[in-house]
């Protein structure tokens, strides 16, 4: 049977067909839907872990426990999981373990566009790069075979355009596998230096064997064409290159670490030019150039942003001349925004007049950086807000401009605990605000250890934020309702002025995920003095009609924040309703 599947759905299907029994992940665009899809298969025990490091560690345990295991994350997630990843390479696995890493060239939904193919080289782990949904499924199955054949974790690297594109996929039945019983083997699994030294040798030998395998396997293929140009490509870039060079000779790389160097040499022989078409960094290009083969790649293609057929054509064939109607000068932008009724708008409206330095974090709330709300001074990586605000206050930053660290509940679970521990232990005096909207909203509303629900929808324990913060050593812990703007402002104002560490938990459910909605509000045009204060909170429902503020009633969520901001009491529930 054939189905139209996204790359992410195809990966989940491939894992299921390969007999996977366990999956662990932390959400992150563009990888999130893999885990959501695999959780839909009854045979697979799938879990959200609090962060990627834990997800991978749980995955290692499951693989040693004897079942094929899938671990998924976005590119920056592997930074968090890099520690277990690099040593897992040494221990190897028992049952197959495949790590899906989803890069985000062009940063559609990310804070950087690092090229994670280098992680495969760093950890000496084989890496497969599918270029279609069908390949995403096939490669995941092959990855499990390779994982067990070579006793190694295998990384499957996809990008946004693979994860979120649909293509036709042929479905196959599931392979049923018995659980392997764990055989203790300290020399293999206990990485003290004496054992690790031995294992590193094994890893180097393993990479040689995998390279040899890659020379013969159809995973890498020379596709003969016409002319004297040869194109080397992998992943979605291969599809763009195919479109631009319909006739050329291709070396299609599926196993890109280790590179099939003999194949590359054979392919290059007799060709006038070798083009390497790859997204982001010159990962293959530099290795091929180091073999003494003349290649052209990044001299013609950018190292930033994602590729598409036009970028490849511009670089290698002929630069396109834009039509004069192509670009419309001054076209209003349409950036993503906090939803109507978002509790983050209440919190930021409350603290904006305090003129604090806001060390922000990663989540929907980062969208508040957009003008006119403009309430973020930093965003680096998940959890950074707490450490950064502590560091800033430690060196006296607060004496010139007071600061606060702001992060979401899921981000707090991910990597906020150690930050709070740090500020209590090292006698900090900063204030941290946890935006507790009861979900991981940015990535589509996933459960986390504070939501009392598992990925499979079962009831479970819920982490109590107040108790945890107190247990970590913070005495001043308060809960506020962000829709009570003034009260929230007073609490934050007080806490930033006190020379003691504090945590303010701002609790209100995400209206998008929990479908919260009250009656829409309206502006009383007679009372509106056209001051524009309400427009500064950047609510999609608030606009101007003439000079007066106006609420688009079908967009309004009725949260009431604008009404509390209005100095003239002009906003409320319309009398007729």
């Amino acid at each position: 049977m054939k189905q139209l599947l996204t790359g992410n759905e195809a990966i989940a299907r491939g894992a299921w067909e390969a007999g996977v029994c366990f999956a662990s992940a932390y959400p992150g665009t563009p990888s999130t839907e893999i885990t959501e899809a695999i959780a839909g298969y009854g045979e697979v025990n799938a879990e959200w872990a609090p962060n990627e490091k834990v997800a991978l560690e749980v995955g290692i345990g499951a693989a040693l426990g004897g079942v094929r295991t899938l671990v998924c994350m976005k590119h920056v997630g592997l930074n968090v999981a890099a520690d277990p990843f690099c040593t897992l390479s040494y221990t190897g696995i028992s049952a197959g373990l495949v790590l899906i890493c989803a890069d985000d060239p062009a940063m559609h939904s990310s804070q950087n566009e690092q090229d994670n193919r280098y992680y495969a080289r760093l950890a000496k782990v084989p890496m497969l790069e599918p270029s279609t949904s069908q390949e995403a499924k096939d490669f995941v199955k092959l990855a499990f075979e390779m994982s067990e054949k070579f006793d190694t974790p295998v990384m499957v690297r996809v990008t946004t355009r693979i994860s979120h594109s649909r293509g036709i996929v042929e479905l196959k039945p599931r392979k049923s596998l018995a659980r392997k019983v764990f055989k203790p083997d300290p020399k293999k699994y206990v990485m003290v230096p004496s054992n690790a030294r031995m294992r590193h040798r094994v890893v180097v030998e393993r990479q040689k064997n995998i390279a040899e395998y890659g020379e013969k396997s159809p995973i890498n293929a020379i596709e003969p064409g016409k002319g004297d140009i040869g194109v080397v490509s992998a992943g979605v870039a291969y599809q763009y290159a195919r479109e631009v060079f319909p006739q050329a000779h291709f070396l299609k790389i599926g196993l890109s670490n280790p590179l099939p160097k003999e194949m590359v040499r054979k392919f290059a022989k007799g060709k006038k030019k070798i083009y390497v078409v790859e997204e982001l960094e010159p990962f293959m290009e530099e290795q091929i150039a180091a073999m003494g083969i003349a290649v052209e790649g990044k001299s013609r293609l950018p190292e930033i942003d994602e590729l598409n057929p036009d970028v490849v054509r511009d670089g290698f064939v002929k630069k396109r001349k834009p039509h004069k109607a192509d670009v419309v000068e001054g076209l209003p932008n349409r950036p993503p925004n906090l939803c109507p009724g978002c509790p983050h708008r209440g919190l930021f409206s409350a603290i904006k007049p305090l003129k604090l330095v806001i060390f922000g974090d990663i989540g929907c709330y980062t969208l508040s950086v957009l003008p006119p709300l403009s309430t973020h001074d930093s965003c680096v990586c998940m959890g950074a807000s707490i450490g950064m605000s502590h560091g800033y206050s430690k060196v006296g930053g607060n004496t010139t401009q007071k600061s606060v660290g702001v992060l979401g509940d899921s981000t707090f679970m991910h990597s906020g605990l150690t930050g709070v521990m740090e500020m209590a232990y090292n006698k900090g005096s900063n204030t941290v605000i946890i935006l507790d909207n009861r979900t991981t909203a940015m990535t589509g509303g996933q459960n986390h250890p504070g939501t009392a629900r598992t990925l499979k929808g079962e009831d479970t324990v819920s982490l109590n934020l107040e108790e945890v913060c107190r247990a970590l050593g913070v005495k001043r812990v308060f809960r506020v309702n962000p829709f009570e703007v003034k009260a929230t402002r007073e609490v934050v104002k007080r806490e930033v002025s006190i020379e003691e560490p504090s945590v303010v938990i701002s609790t209100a459910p995400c209206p998008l995920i929990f479908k919260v909605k009250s009656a829409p509000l309206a502006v009383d045009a007679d009372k509106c003095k056209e001051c524009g204060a309400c427009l500064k909170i950047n609510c999609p429902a608030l606009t101007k009609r003439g000079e007066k503020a106006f609420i688009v009633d079908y967009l309004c969520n009725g949260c009431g924040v604008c009404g509390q901001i209005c100095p003239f009491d002009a906003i409320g529930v319309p009398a007729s309703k």
Partner: protein
Amino acid sequence: MKTASTEKKAAGKATSKEPIDILIVGVGGQGIILASRIISQALVYAGYDVKQSEVHGMAQRGGAVSSHIRAGEKVYSPLIPYDSARYMLSFESLEALRYMSYIYAGSTVLLNDQKIDPPSVASGQQQYPPDVIERIKKKAKDVRVIPAADVAFELGNERVVNVILTGALAGNLPVSRKIWMKTLSELVPAKLMEINTKAFERGMQFSNR
């Protein structure tokens, strides 16, 4: 293991299919993803190789959204090259202007006349472009305006705008009515099938095939 060459052979058996590139654009929350799924799936049933691509990372937060659908005998890139979208379906008026590079003189542009003010327009800093149609016509002559919101209002359900627009595009495509109905019934909830069928058919009246 399937390589590109074996995939090509398999696709080669189908009867010759002219490539069709369709770009759907609009604003997060307008139902572009469902529309894309209906169109892609129907083209698969009609025997095409199909790829469809969208970025939906922050789609629900009111940002600009675009979806590429490519059908043909064998499709490589999931993204449509510039100057080659046979159809552009714009769910919101000015959004069409963001993607002008993708259309060419022979493109058909189906334009929902609905306007959703971007933040800078809502706050009065910028003006909503008054000349959307004229600007599109500088590149592609065939622009058809579809009053999808009015039609939805007539049908008594404002949420079927996306299916009306899907119907308006559908009428142009070489896909049988039977296939459209089968696809619709698979992708919309059973209890909404009646209203969506009506919406789809009203939409189809806007295409001139």
